[in-house]
Structures are given as structure tokens and as C-alpha cells.
């Protein structure tokens, strides 16, 4: 059965390691914060200028001067620190952020990503996405495997305007965990009850299926 968005986030959270500094994009990526494994210390970076992002505030405790990059009210935790936008993107470009998780409209088998613009539709802007994908050490895409029309969002080449080239390493969808290798998409794990054949049928582009592919365990 296909994963829920919560489960996609939960699966991605298993990639977290102790001491990681992590930037989580808007949407499914934000949910990853709810599944940080016990016993490890992960610090969340918000590119508007906060390291050590805490949970949403209790009602009545919202502080308009304290928001995340999604403009949501948030809180600090012990050890939090504020800084300006130049330093924030400086630390991203300098490779200090260990992992970035973000959504996508399309990902190509060479690791290109498109997630900011649809020709003919109003363009809202790339925000920090182009900086993040260009510079983060390690990027995981969290997305549904297919678009609302049922078409694969994994493609030989992106058709939409690019956000970044050759930058994505791993994709977690509602159907599969897929690594991007030199030879194309490589199936790593299947959603429980979803067959490799089903995943192949919903993936346009080279999908390497090497031996038995394990199911995800939650």
C-alpha cells in the first residue's frame, strides 16, 4: 500500500544521524521533524535565520518576530541561535548543513530537480530552493511518485524549468526509496505491499532493480 505523507516523512527521518544540521522544506519535509529518532541530536536550520528550530508555539504564545522559512510561527530550544540571511545561505553554501529535504515536481535520473515554476502558471519564485539544491551536501526529495494525473514525476529528463542540476541523491516517494546513481534511478526499498513491477510501471526513465528489493519497515 502506498505510504501516507506522514509515512514518507517517517521513512526519511531514518536517514538522520546524530549531530546532523538539517534544513526541511515546506510540505512533507516539514513533517520529518516529528520523527527524529530517539537518542540522536538533530538541529533544524530555517533559512530565514534560525538554527535550533523548536516546535510550533502553544496557542496564545505566538511571537510575530519568530517564524520559520514557511512563515509559520515557531519557537526556540536551548542552544538556538539567530543570524541574518547572508550568514544563513553562507552556511548552506559552505556545506555546513548536512542534509536538506525538499519537495519536487520532477526529478531526473541524473539528479536534476524542478520544483519552482510551471510555464503558463503564475510564478511565485524560487525562494531559497535554488541555493539549497546547489549547495547542500546531501539532498533528499520527498514527493508523491506520480502527479495528480497519474504521470511519473521521475523522468529521464525534467520537462519543467530546473531548480538545480545533478544535485539530488535520494528520493522517497509514497511507493519507493530510490537512489540516484550514475546509471539512473536505483530501487532501494518498496512501500509495504507495493511490487517492484508496480514501481517500474509508474516510473519513466531507467529504473535499476537489482535482486530482491526489501520492503520498508516502520
Amino acid at each position, binding site marked *: 500500500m502506498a505510504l501516507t505523507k506522514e509515512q514518507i516523512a517517517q521513512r526519511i527521518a531514518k536517514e538522520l544521524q546524530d549531530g546532523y544540521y538539517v534544513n526541511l522544506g515546506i510540505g512533507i519535509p516539514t513533517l520529518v521533524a516529528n520523527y527524529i529518532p530517539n537518542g540522536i541530536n538533530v538541529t533544524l536550520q*530555517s*533559512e*530565514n*535565520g*534560525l538554527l535550533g528550530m523548536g*516546535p*510550533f*508555539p*502553544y*496557542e496564545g*504564545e*505566538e*511571537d*510575530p*518576530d*519568530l*517564524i*520559520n*522559512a*514557511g*512563515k*509559520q*510561527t*515557531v519557537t*526556540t530550544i536551548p542552544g538556538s541561535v*539567530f*543570524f*541574518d*540571511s*547572508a550568514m*544563513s*545561505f*553562507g552556511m*548552506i*553554501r559552505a556545506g555546513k548543513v548536512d542534509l536538506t529535504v525538499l519537495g519536487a515536481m520532477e526529478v531526473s535520473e541524473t539528479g*536534476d530537480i524542478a520544483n519552482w515554476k510551471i510555464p503558463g502558471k*503564475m*510564478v*511565485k*519564485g*524560487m*525562494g*531559497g*530552493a*535554488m*541555493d539549497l539544491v*546547489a*549547495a547542500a551536501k546531501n539532498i533528499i526529495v520527498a514527493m508523491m511518485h506520480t502527479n495528480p494525473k497519474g504521470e511519473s514525476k521521475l523522468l529521464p529528463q525534467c520537462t519543467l*524549468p*530546473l*531548480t*538545480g*542540476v*545533478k544535485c539530488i541523491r535520494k528520493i522517497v516517494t509514497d511507493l519507493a526509496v530510490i537512489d540516484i546513481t550514475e546509471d539512473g534511478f536505483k530501487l532501494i526499498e518498496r512501500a509495504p505491499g507495493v511490487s517492484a513491477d508496480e514501481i517500474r510501471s509508474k516510473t519513466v526513465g531507467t529504473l535499476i532493480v537489482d535482486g530482491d528489493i526489501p520492503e520498508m519497515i516502520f
Partner: protein
Amino acid sequence: MNKVFKNADEAVKDIADGATIMMGGFGLCGIPENCIAALVKKDVKNITCISNNAGVDDFGIGLMLKNRQLKKMIASYVGENGEFERQLLSGELDVELIPQGTLATRCMAAGYGMPAVFTLAGVGTEVAAGKEVRNFNGRDYLLEMAFDSDFAIVKAWKGDKAGNLIYKETARNFNPMMAMAGKITIAEVEELVEPGELDPNIIHTPGIYVHRIFKGTGYEKRIENRTVRKRG
């Protein structure tokens, strides 16, 4: 030399039609509410505005849009604004979308006396069109130019009469770099104190960058995306 102005109207008095203005803030957080109101009142036109966002329909830079004061918007993200969309589609408004880190860094470059900077962001995308690409240590970078802005308008939490500024939490965002980058920098602050009342060790923007300062009033600090959790 007195940097202290009476209010926003006085501080923006000489901003003329056609000026380029940097405006601090991220979304509606840390925006110069008083100066925006004064600019709307003054009805200055054909402004090029450099700001991360364009506000919402009825707040922030959105108020200037509604009043058709902007010729061009340079921003990284302009969602949440219907009037913006209308003016863009009708051709009344020119827009240049640039990556958020590039926006921050082009401000910073101006403030640090660097004419241009190299950045990874946008390589291989349409943002790179017409720009110089250069390889350093095996990676491609875009050459991006420092901004040149007549005015920078920033919002700080505390300021002293020498122009030293301290921002609060994530309301800091673009304000410090813009403060450094403006030919004329105008700061509005929630609290204006005498020189010596702020600890010199914790000032974010040294007064040398600030030409005009005034105590703002009536801050609304509208929250764009109020998100809360239930009490356990």
C-alpha cells in the same frame, strides 16, 4: 551630526520618483511598517524595490503595489499577493526573481565593497541566462553583481542615536545586509535609546551604516501563517 528624525514622513521626505529602495523583512516579519505607510502617503512612483517578498494584498509592500507605486520588484518569492499577480500579467509591473541566497549575498556584497560575488545557486537553470559562469575547483559558479540602491529601509528592535541597531529574533533576516548596502540607510526602531545604553558587544549593525533613525509607532506585526500546537 544628528541622525535622529522625528518620524517616517521626515525620514523618507527626499525619496523621489524612480528611486531604488531596499526593504528589509522576510514575509511580514521585520518589515519597516512605518516607512511603508509613509511612502504610500507620499505616493512616490516608479519605485524599484529590492525585497525578499512583496507583502500580502493589504499589508507590507502589498500596500505600495495596491497604490501602483512600484515599477519593478526584485525578490525571491512573491506568492500570497493577488494584486501583484494582476499587475505582473497586465505588464504594469516588472519582476526579477532571484534565489534568496543570491539576493542576500548581492546585498552583502554592496555592504562589503565587493563589486560582484560568485555563487553556486542557479547554475544550469534559467537564472544563469546571460551570466558569466566560472569554474573553481571543479564546480561551476555564477557571477552575480552587487546591488546598487539609493535607499535601504530597515526595521530594528532597538537602536541608539548613533545609529547602532539590534534586531529581534528572525525579524533580523535581510535587514543587516540591506542596512550596510544602502547609499542612504533609514532605520525605524521600536525602542530608541541614548548612545551607551546598548552593549557595544552585541550590536548587529554599527551606526556607521545608518544615516537616519526614528522611533516607529503602532507596530501591527501581522502574522502571515499563524501555526500553533495544542497544549498537552
